[in-house]
């Protein structure tokens, strides 16, 4: 197993910069997700690590050995593609393919095919033509082919995207279990934040070719570095409220026209860091309490819309001209146009610099 290091990597396609000065280190045995919307450069990055594409600038290292000049065949990697690639052969032949290329002895090939088929629950399908299998099984065959040669690095390019929702969840758990068992250095590309959050030891969030934040799922959720990460991580997504930073009697507060938020202890930090008075306050819908009775420091609003998503409801509360989404678990007693009181949980909100997009607190 190895650690993978990408240094100062840039990749251009014509005038578009697909990957811009990327620095990323994946530790030995780590499961890293590259997360971002389509066109953010995540797949390009993965293809460059695989050797199917080349960065225009920068280097890739496997364990301090530069691999830039190595072809995909020489890099000893395993890769699974979005569109489950199986060869027009039986499952057994598919699994054996990477080993036969290396001219390993027959009994060793047989032993390893048997082993990997057991891990991936393909034992009963070994003699079936792989092209006749269903999507989930095809993807398991592709995964088996990637794993069987015990690659230094396992690269997964949206391997679950083309499966239906139920299979996707199953395969996700299977992947987690597999990683716990094999501990191979893994890079997993996805646009699905839930997938990234559940699978990744660390997640690299990318947008427009630039790495936004590289951190644990916990930190991405609780300590986003900028507006993009705050907005991209979490579902339903964070509320953003345009505010003006104001000062009264030495204490700072946020003026959102229709309501004010006292900053208390955070005043000094915010006043020091903000580049201007224009800021955005961000708070997650799950960090807001809503009730029919008034409590201290609550804001009054009217229910504008209720989104029911099974066991949860997203309640859109209108305060003046602002709409704030609040997440409520279980059945809701609230009705449209009802007057309600909402309160932000202590220390859960973020303040972003409107100009730079980066977080202040």
């Amino acid at each position, binding site marked *: 197993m190895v650690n993978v290091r990408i240094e100062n990597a840039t990749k251009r396609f014509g005038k578009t910069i697909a990957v811009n000065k990327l620095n990323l280190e994946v530790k030995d045995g780590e499961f890293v997700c590259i997360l971002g919307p389509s066109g953010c450069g995540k797949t390009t990055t993965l293809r460059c690590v695989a050797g199917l594409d080349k960065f225009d600038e920068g280097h890739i290292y496997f364990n301090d050995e530069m691999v830039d000049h190595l072809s995909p*065949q020489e890099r000893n*990697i395993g890769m699974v593609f979005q569109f489950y*690639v199986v*060869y027009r052969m039986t499952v057994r032949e598919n699994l054996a393919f990477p080993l036969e*290329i290396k001219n390993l002895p027959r009994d060793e090939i047989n032993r390893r095919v048997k082993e990997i088929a057991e891990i991936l629950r393909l034992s009963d399908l070994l003699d079936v033509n792989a092209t006749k299998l269903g999507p989930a099984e095809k993807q398991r065959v592709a995964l088996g*082919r990637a794993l069987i040669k015990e690659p230094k690095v396992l*690269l997964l390019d949206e391997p679950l995207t083309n499966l239906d929702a139920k299979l996707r969840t199953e395969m996700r758990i299977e992947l987690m279990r597999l990683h716990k068992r094999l501990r191979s250095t893994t890079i997993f590309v996805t646009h699905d934040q839930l997938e990234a959050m559940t699978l990744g030891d660390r997640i690299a969030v990318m947008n427009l070719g630039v790495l936004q934040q590289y951190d644990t799922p916990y930190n991405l959720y609780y300590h986003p570095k900028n507006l993009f990460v705050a907005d991209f991580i979490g579902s339903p997504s964070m509320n953003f409220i345009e505010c003006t930073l104001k000062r009264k009697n030495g204490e700072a507060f946020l003026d959102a026209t229709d309501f004010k938020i006292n900053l208390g202890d955070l005043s000094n930090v915010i006043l020091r860091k903000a580049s201007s008075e224009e800021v955005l306050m961000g708070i997650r819908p799950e960090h807001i309490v809503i009730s029919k009775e008034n409590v201290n420091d609550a804001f009054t609003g009217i229910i504008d819309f209720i989104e029911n998503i099974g066991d949860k409801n997203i309640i859109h509360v209108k305060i003046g001209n602002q709409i704030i989404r609040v997440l409520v678990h279980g059945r809701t007693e609230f009705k449209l146009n009802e007057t309600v009181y909402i309160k932000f949980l202590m220390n859960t909100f973020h303040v972003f610099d409107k100009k730079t997009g980066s977080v202040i607190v």
Partner: protein
Amino acid sequence: MGVAKSSSIERHWNKLLILPTMIYLGIFAFGSFGLVLFLSFTNIAFRGEISRFDIIGVENYAKAIMDPTFLTALKNTFILAGVAVPVEMLLGLGIALMLNQDIKGRRILRSLFILPMITTPIVVGNMWRLMYNSEFGLINYVLMSWGILSKPVPFLGLPETALWAIILVDIWQWTPFTTLIILAGLQALPTAPYEAALVDGASSWQIFRKITLPMLVPTLLIAFLLRFMDAIKIFDIVYITTFGGPGLSTEIVGLTIYKEAFKKLNLGYASALTVLVLFIVIILSNIVLMIINKIMRR
């Protein structure tokens, strides 16, 4: 109601749209085949009064399977198709693989490779006849100046070489066709399996052998089938270069039928030969189609 009505109009509209094709096929395919089939059981000839002929049963067929000219023609035709088509397939595959790569001037090369195929057969025939000429032909000149031949050989004039000379012309003219079909097949192949095989560590030869070739088999068989059926119909090149000679050494079925019908004016007998050749082609192409279906189903 509305839906049912519109769908019934649609159904009739569909029929109307295929009507021209049906009329065309009716007259020129089924109609003429029916006529040929009927005539093959008669002794009709372009001599004397054409309306006076007798139905003679399978006499024409009995004569055909004993006719040395026809049997030689069949043999020559299958030697030609059996040698030329596999060579065209192999060359076509090689050239298509080459043109499928990122090489400089690929587009120009592609256009140049198609030239033989789009040249009129009469022109091709005359051109090669001149090139094969023993007194001033280019081929003799080159072979002699390289010292391969000590004296000029009339390639089209010798029974031993004439058929092979024609096979070479067929290969020259029709390799572009197989190239084109195989190239189209190659370009329609998905790229993902190549990339997967690269990552799996396969060499170019292994990728070709294990990934490309199996995916290309349907295309190859279709190219083979089209070329094979076409090669059996060969006529114009032989007509221009040798007219079946010397002796019967380049006699092919197309030419035999032509000679029976329009030189000897034995319309009934020529019809019987046509029907025989048609059935042979149908049987052979169905065998190939069965193989294609078997492979596709696997």
